[in-house]
């Protein structure tokens, strides 16, 4: 028991581990997949956005470059410079303002010169940046390209004068015809569109985008208060958590990549990419809860389901375990009980005579009995024994089934044995049994019993029926023995039982049975019944042969349907011969020659009864055949059909055949005998038949009686 409990526990454990391991693996794989998917989407989004930005940047750069040649020419006539800038602004929507700032000292008489065109409301305005307070030669947009000798995108800035716009300036060095850098051509670009483009990124509901300038200024971010007021790189330098600083450093150095950073207590994945030429860096920040949110929920659900499943498994194993204990207990009990019932069956069968033939030395009695219990133990019984040349026999059926019935069966049989040890009268036997059974009958059980005493010498039988079904009596036909039903044993203690009697003759028989025979049921709920029983019994057999035949017929009838009741039978064949009695056989033939063949069997039957040898039997057959042939050939007029009756009689040491017919009167004995001494040529063909009859039989006589020819032939035995 313990072992199977442990095995059950182990099973649950293994199942749990397997489930957990597979779901963990599944979780990790799904997480990896989602992570990869997220990266792909973020990177492609970055690329798309960058392409949009680069479009505008390129437009601006191209426009400026295209104006560079004209600007170079204008160095010769500085007054045309304003026109160049004006054309540049007018032709390009993205360009908010433009100037050509001449390197100080290049133009004679004009230490500073920088005519400026800019958009104001819907029109263009013009001014000069060559003022002392502005002092353009110190501005980054002027110094950097000079210093680098190439074009330059300025750090973004907020244009304080023109509506707080985020701006950036593209500067392009202009060379004179000697190849000397003489001026810087600029285009101020509004970055309004940038916020719009960047904010269009909508990967996840809570994801957001950020853009940093070359120096680490926040150019675009959802919190507008931070825009152009926070330098992430500088601010994060002092953070305890160094990841933000490392991230901004990576972004500012123009790298592609991604990094996890923590803020507001959440882990976020930051994907970033540089925007070439401008030195800006663009990033998308996605909270991990967004990336794996769905997965987490699914994982929780799966885990919950698994837990439920495991709990059910534990319950099932527990139930199976408890059941198996119960089942084993029941099985053990059942086995013990079956064994005890088997022993009970043995004891029960030992109580009834079951060696057949029981009296092999006797030739006046052929008796056999059988009991087939429906269950291991049954309530049917039979018994018989001989005392003082009397056969005491009974058959009975205890009410109910199983062990109680089997116990009462044992009691009944013991009572029968003890009472028949000194009582001869069935009425007395049944009365005494009834009294003692009624006395101790507390369970209201009863027994039907047929009890008989047969005087073996005379065939006189007395019987008393205590509520049992009457037996079949076999004389020259089969019928039910007349039996007063009375009452079963054990019901009324002082019941007056009626005894009956009958004389059995040689060859008479009794078939006693319990209702298990006639009430044997087939699968269609049909009963075997009296008609089938009678049909089986109508063939002559030995006692055992009759029982075997009935058992076989019942088995065939029920065809495997379970036996519902005990099947018990007793066949008693009385065979005491009485020399004083006559035995007769009778045969009726038609007056046809082929009928004569039947005589052989008839004579054999008679010969068996009379115990005569085969030679004499053949002679008798011959005599009878000659007599019958005579009648067949001559008694009836041609073609008329008429019977020929043959009777045999064995009596007082002689055998007679009587042949009679209703044909024309004819006395065969009156014809003269043939002369058997004549030689062949003189012998007549006819006359031999009657001669043989006369020779074989001792006495032959003819009489005409009631219109019948009666020929009697007698042979002394």
């Amino acid at each position, binding site marked *: 028991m313990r072992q199977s409990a442990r095995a059950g526990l182990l099973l649950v454990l293994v199942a749990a581990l397997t489930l957990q391991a597979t779901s963990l693996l599944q979780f990790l794989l799904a997480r990896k997949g989602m992570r990869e998917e997220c990266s792909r989407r973020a990177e492609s989004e970055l690329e798309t956005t960058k392409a949009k930005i680069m479009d505008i940047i390129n437009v601006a750069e191209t426009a400026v470059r295209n104006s560079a040649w004209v600007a170079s020419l204008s160095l010769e006539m500085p007054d045309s410079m304003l026109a160049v800038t004006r054309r540049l602004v007018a032709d390009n929507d993205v360009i908010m303002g433009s100037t050509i700032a001449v390197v100080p000292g290049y133009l004679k008489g004009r230490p500073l010169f920088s005519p400026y065109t800019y958009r104001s409301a819907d029109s263009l305005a013009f001014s000069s940046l060559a003022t002392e307070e502005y002092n353009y030669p110190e501005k980054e947009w002027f110094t950097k390209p000079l210093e680098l000798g190439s074009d330059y995108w300025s750090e973004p800035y907020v244009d304080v004068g023109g509506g707080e716009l985020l701006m950036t300036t593209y500067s392009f060095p202009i060379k004179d015809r000697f190849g000397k850098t003489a001026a810087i051509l600029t285009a101020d670009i509004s970055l309004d569109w940038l916020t719009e483009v960047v904010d269009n990124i909508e990967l996840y509901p809570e994801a957001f985008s950020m853009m940093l300038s070359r120096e680490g200024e926040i150019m675009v971010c959802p919190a507008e208060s931070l825009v152009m007021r926070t330098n992430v790189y500088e601010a994060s330098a002092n953070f305890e958590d160094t990841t933000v600083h490392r991230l901004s450093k990576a972004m500012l150095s123009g790298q592609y990549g991604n990094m996890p950073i923590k803020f507001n207590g959440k882990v976020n994945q930051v994907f970033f990419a540089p925007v070439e030429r401008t030195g800006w860096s663009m990033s998308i920040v996605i909270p991990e809860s967004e990336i794996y949110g769905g997965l987490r929920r699914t994982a929780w659900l799966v885990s919950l389901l698994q837990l439920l499943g495991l709990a059910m498994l534990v319950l099932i194993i527990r139930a199976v375990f408890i059941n198996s204990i119960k089942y084993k207990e029941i099985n053990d009990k059942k086995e013990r009980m079956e064994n005890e019932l088997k022993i009970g069956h043995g004891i029960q069968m030992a109580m009834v005579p079951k060696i057949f033939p029981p009296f092999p030395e006797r030739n006046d009695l052929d008796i056999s009995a059988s009991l087939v219990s429906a269950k291991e133990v049954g309530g049917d019984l039979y018994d018989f024994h001989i005392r003082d040349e009397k056969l005491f026999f009974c058959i009975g059926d205890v009410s109910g089934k199983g062990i109680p019935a089997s116990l009462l069966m044992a009691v009944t049989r013991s009572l029968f044995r003890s009472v028949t040890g000194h009582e001869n009268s069935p009425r007395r036997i049944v009365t005494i049994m009834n009294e003692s059974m009624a006395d101790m009958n507390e369970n209201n059980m009863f027994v039907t019993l047929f009890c008989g005493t047969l005087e073996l010498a005379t065939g006189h039988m007395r019987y008393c029926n205590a509520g049992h079904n009457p037996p079949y009596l076999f004389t020259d036909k089969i019928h039910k023995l007349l039996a007063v039903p009375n009452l079963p044993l054990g019901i009324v203690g002082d019941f007056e039982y009626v005894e009956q009697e009958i004389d059995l003759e040689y060859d008479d028989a009794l078939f006693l049975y319990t209702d298990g025979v006639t009430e044997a049921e087939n699968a269609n709920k049909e009963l075997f019944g009296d008609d089938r029983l009678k049909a089986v019994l109508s063939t002559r057999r030995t006692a055992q042969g009759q029982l075997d035949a009935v058992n076989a017929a019942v088995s065939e009838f029920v065809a495997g349907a379970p036996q519902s009741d005990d099947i018990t039978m007793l066949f008693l064949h009385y065979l005491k011969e009485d020399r004083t009695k006559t035995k007769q056989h009778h045969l009726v033939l038609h007056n046809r*020659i*082929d009928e*004569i*063949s039947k005589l*052989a069997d008839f004579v054999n039957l008679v010969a068996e009864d009379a115990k005569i040898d085969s*030679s004499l039997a*053949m*002679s008798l*057959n*011959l005599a009878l*055949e*000659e007599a019958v*042939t005579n009648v*067949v050939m001559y008694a009836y007029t041609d073609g008329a059909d008429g019977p020929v009756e043959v009777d045999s009689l064995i009596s007082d040491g002689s055998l007679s055949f009587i042949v009679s017919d209703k044909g024309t009167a004819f006395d065969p004995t009156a014809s003269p005998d043939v002369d*058997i*001494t*004549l*030689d*062949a*040529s003189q*012998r007549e*063909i*006819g006359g*031999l*038949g009657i*001669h*043989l009859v006369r*020779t*074989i039989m001792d006495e032959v006589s003819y009489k005409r009686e009631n219109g019948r020819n009666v020929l009697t032939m007698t042979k002394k035995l």
Partner: protein
Amino acid sequence: MDIQINKEGNVTTVVLAGRLDTPASQPAAAALEPVINDASGTIVLDCKALEYISSSGLRIFLTIRKAAMAQGGSVVVKDINDDIRNVFMMTGFLNLFDIR
């Protein structure tokens, strides 16, 4: 009743088996008609397997005997059992036949 007839040269052997009773006699007589019609040789009636004979059977024996006599032949009855020998005795047939 079973009858077999074999003719070899001058000798006709008739094997009779079973019961030659009244019903069997009519077909037996018909079967033996060729023997009766050609009875100039030796006719051997083999009765080893003959179990029974009635007067109708005896009549056939007598008919064959008479035919042989008329046609100059002879009849031999072979291997009759005791019961049939008894019938032959009772009917005086023992004297009419050459019984071997």
